[in-house]
């Protein structure tokens, strides 16, 4: 008999319980809904961290389980942010434009409204025309569909070309990084139709809900992020716990062998690559409204490399490892670089953590690789096994 998912993977039950408890406590302590002990900016940091945990799960699925070291998943994350950002920015600008045109003697024509919106959004890159890719920007449903479709199709086409040509290992990593870099450079151009290096901004404001204070909106997004993370964890656990999980781990460990067993390896890789790209995109679509801005720098290759570092530190091949790594490193990172970490005066030199955090992270990565190759999750495994014996 096959046990239900929650019992088969003990980490699922523990994780979902912890996530639910954490979400509840934070909500009760928030400014918007409760005691006001957790500030709105802190809620946003926590909500964003949950999104980063979600993309870390995607990374763990594609790298830790299937052995594809993708250095491009942050591109899908960023694209998800752009897709939802287009709707947020367009509709919000439309509200503002309608408000300012309302005082006129004659009602504004649709053409005037569109011109005004175009000037508002694209004036910064010297344009006033709304590019064709913004065609659906006034429809939330359409842009939500694009959040899934655009990164999903990109991953599908890219993956199909790469896997079909049997590009593996470090060559595939380089290829994914090249894809990320190309996308980032393209978005940096002013005529890309997505405002060049300015990116999309003001995403924290929900169109039509301007009366709702950020203290409330932030909790909404925090809750949505927690829900998405929980769902993502469940989906990932479902994928890796059955025979499919056995097969993708077999692909990671010995691709040729499983191919001679009759498994179409390329199809499996494509399924995992595309599924994780979609998860990453959804995480991004929840992250950027909390960050308020998405720009091409977010898609730079370094972001995807950080993602790999989080998963390595947390522990590859364990879903909770990815979550621990992403949460720990990104929270530490925002603490160290946020100027809150106390500087260490050494007399002749002062260690300022804003500059030295990267060094600390690099050192931590080296230490983990050398002394705990299975990451923090591996240490957890060792403790659990000790208890069991």
């Amino acid at each position, binding site marked *: 008999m096959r046990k239900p998912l929650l019992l088969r993977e003990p980490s699922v039950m523990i994780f979902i319980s912890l996530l639910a408890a954490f979400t509840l406590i934070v909500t009760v302590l928030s400014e918007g809904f409760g005691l006001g002990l957790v500030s709105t900016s802190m809620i946003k940091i926590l909500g964003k961290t949950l999104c980063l945990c979600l993309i870390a799960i995607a990374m763990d699925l594609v790298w830790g389980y299937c052995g594809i070291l993708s250095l491009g998943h942050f591109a899908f994350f960023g694209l998800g942010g752009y897709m939802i950002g287009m709707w947020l920015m367009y509709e919000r600008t439309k509200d503002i434009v309608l408000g300012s045109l309302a005082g006129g003697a004659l009602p504004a024509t649709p053409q005037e409204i569109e011109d005004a919106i175009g000037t508002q959004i694209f004036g910064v890159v010297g344009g006033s025309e709304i590019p064709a890719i913004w065609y659906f920007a006034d429809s939330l449903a359409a842009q939500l569909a694009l959040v899934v479709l655009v990164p999903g199709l990109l991953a599908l086409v890219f993956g199909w070309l790469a896997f079909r040509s049997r590009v593996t290992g470090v060559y595939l990593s380089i290829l994914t990084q090249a894809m990320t870099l190309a996308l980032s450079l393209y978005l940096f151009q002013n005529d890309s139709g997505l405002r060049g290096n300015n990116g999309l901004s003001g995403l924290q404001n929900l169109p039509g809900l301007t009366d709702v204070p950020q203290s409330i909106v932030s909790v909404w997004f925090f809750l949505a992020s927690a829900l998405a993370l929980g769902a993502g964890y469940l989906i990932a656990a479902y994928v890796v716990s059955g025979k499919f999980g056995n*097969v993708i781990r077999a692909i990671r460990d010995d691709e*040729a*062998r499983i191919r001679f*067993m*009759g498994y*179409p390896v390329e199809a*499996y890789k494509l399924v995992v690559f595309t599924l994780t790209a979609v998860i990453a995109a959804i995480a991004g679509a929840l992250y950027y409204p909390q960050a308020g801005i998405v720009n091409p720098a977010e898609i730079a290759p370094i972001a995807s490399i950080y993602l790999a570092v989080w998963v390595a530190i947390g522990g590859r091949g364990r879903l909770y490892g990815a979550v621990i790594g992403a949460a720990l490193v990104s929270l530490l990172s925002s603490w160290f670089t946020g100027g809150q970490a106390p500087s260490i005066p050494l007399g002749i030199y002062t260690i300022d953590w804003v500059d030295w955090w990267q060094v600390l992270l690099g050192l931590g990565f080296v230490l983990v690789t050398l002394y705990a190759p299975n990451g923090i999750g591996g240490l957890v495994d060792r403790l659990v096994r000790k208890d069991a014996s």
Partner: protein
Amino acid sequence: MSALLEVNSVSVAFDGFKAINDLSFEIGGQELRAVIGPNGAGKTTFMDIVTGKTRPDDGRILFGEPMMDLLRLSESQIARAGIGRKFQRPTVFETQSVRDNLMMALAGDRSPLAVLRYRPSGGDGERIAALAEEIGLSDQLGRVAGELSHGQKQWLEIGMLLAQDPKLLLVDEPAAGMTLGEREHTTDLLRAAAQTRAVIVVEHDMEFVRRLDCKVTVLHEGSVLAEGTLDHVTANSDVIDVYLGR
């Protein structure tokens, strides 16, 4: 006897070196065959060609009932058509349990979506138990395959091949690194397997080949030098010259 596998004047060269040179070979549906030959005779390349890993420059390979052209198929399609291969080095999935190794090998739909929806049935459990019995690993099913001894890994791999239920089994040097007792068990496994399917064993251990007690094909410089019983081929003067070297 109609042939299960027909290899017709196949040639393949690597950088000008003819690894396989106008090789023709045939095997019936339920037959055990040993392929022997000195190093560099093309034994492994022959297996690579049949399993789709290497594409020949020339020739035809037909397989199955009705005969299909193997050169049109990918490795995984050839495997699904019914050709299983055991590599020289035991390759099992070391981080996974013996049961999971066998479960993955069990014949069935291999497409990603079917595998995602896969639920182990009682029949699959019985198949795995029967296979484990056959390869002598019944009490090891829950163990991680990486913890098995060298010989046990070889058997697990043979068990995985039997689980695939192939029509043709290619086995590369199964006896390498085995103790005498393990060799005997392996011989039994292979002979039992050949009752219901074709088995080709590539081996250069003469003692092991004698134990298999089957028709022998001698390869030399990429083509067939002699074919027949072991006594017949070892009496062949060409074989004595190139292989036995005495």
